[in-house]
């Protein structure tokens, strides 16, 4: 193909998003993202919603929260618990991987 390759945005820790931007990335209202923060699912920098700053990885976490809420019919407290347990499973899995490497 001769077309110019598309360059997207890599959603890493260098990417900074405001509350409005993150809400827009989730096609959700600001109040839904505020609820995620209040539930401890997202942890932005800054003191008040007006100056909150989210890093790029918050986008995939918010999307996962959205899918869990929608597909499994759980409330945000449940979503928070699921995501925390999944984080723990991930940590344990990578520890097992490292342990197998060390043998």
């Amino acid at each position, binding site marked *: 193909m001769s077309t110019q390759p*598309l360059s997207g945005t890599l959603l890493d820790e260098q990417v900074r998003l405001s509350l409005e931007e993150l809400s827009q990335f989730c096609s959700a209202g600001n109040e839904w993202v505020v609820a995620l923060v209040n539930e401890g699912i997202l942890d932005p920098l800054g003191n008040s919603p007006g100056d909150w700053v989210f890093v790029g990885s918050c986008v995939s976490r918010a999307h996962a929260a959205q899918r869990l809420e929608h597909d499994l019919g759980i409330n945000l407290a449940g979503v928070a618990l699921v995501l925390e347990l*999944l984080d723990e499973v991930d940590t344990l899995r990578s520890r097992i*991987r490292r342990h197998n490497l060390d043998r």
Partner: protein
Amino acid sequence: MEFQDYYAVMGVERNASQDDIKRSYRKLARKYHPDVSKEPDAEARFKTLGEAYAVLKDPEKRASYDELGANWKSGEDFHRPTDWAAGFEFSGDGRGDGVHAYSELFESLFGQRSGAPHSRSGFQTLGSDHHAKIQVELEDAYRGATRAISLRAPEIDDTGHVTTKDRTLNVRIPKGVRPGQRIRLAGQGSPGLGGGAAGDLYLEIEIQPHRLYTIDDRDVHLTLPLTPWEAVLGTTVKIPTPAGAVDLKIPPDTHNGRKLRLKGRGIPSRPAGDFFVTAELTLPPANTATDKDFYQKMQQDMNYDPRAHIEV
């Protein structure tokens, strides 16, 4: 197109109550939810499950599915009877949560997805976001690359019908990507209707397993076999890294499993990961008489008891 037994997908009997169906759906949805499940085919199963539930939870759709379901077995080549469902009318569930790629069977039976946005004058709908995974080589993460990816996505045409459209995108993979990270391509999701903005495309990075290296987030690991004399006396060995060969100094008295760190030579994210080399001491085989003599000489001359700490 293949016939799907939605009752088998849901793991319920044909006479299951609506409550049974809901319970079974909830249970299987938790099991195969792609965010939760580590089963390799979770995504496909979750999709089929969603489709089965969309039919069986709706008494109208269930009744019409039952009408033809009795004559078909899963996997059989399916053609929709021409007079089927003539008397049924399907009402949407009104959720309007975008377009899903339902199977051909579903589309043939129930047409466009219920709740999908209709095109009306003066009515705008935002296009939905799409999510896909993209596999790259570890070397691509070090250097950056351009990948052509094929996507199959449902689209709604101007008359409100869902069609599946294949498209190929050339996407730049930036240097420093790590497994699980996402690239957002604004406006590359489904197009909106009535002038509404298009959705976005999210690509999740997967890094293909490598013959030599294992990846742990931004760090890269290599297991390096060493001879006992290299490990004891120390040496310099040429080792591969995804960024090219480097000379690695093995300090004297390197024990088995010792980890040597090459700072900043992991995946070049911001900040860069590290490259770890794990020493793996190997036992030289004694295949010849000379080799065996050598071991015997070691036995006589070396004062070594690996079991000194075990009191028998």
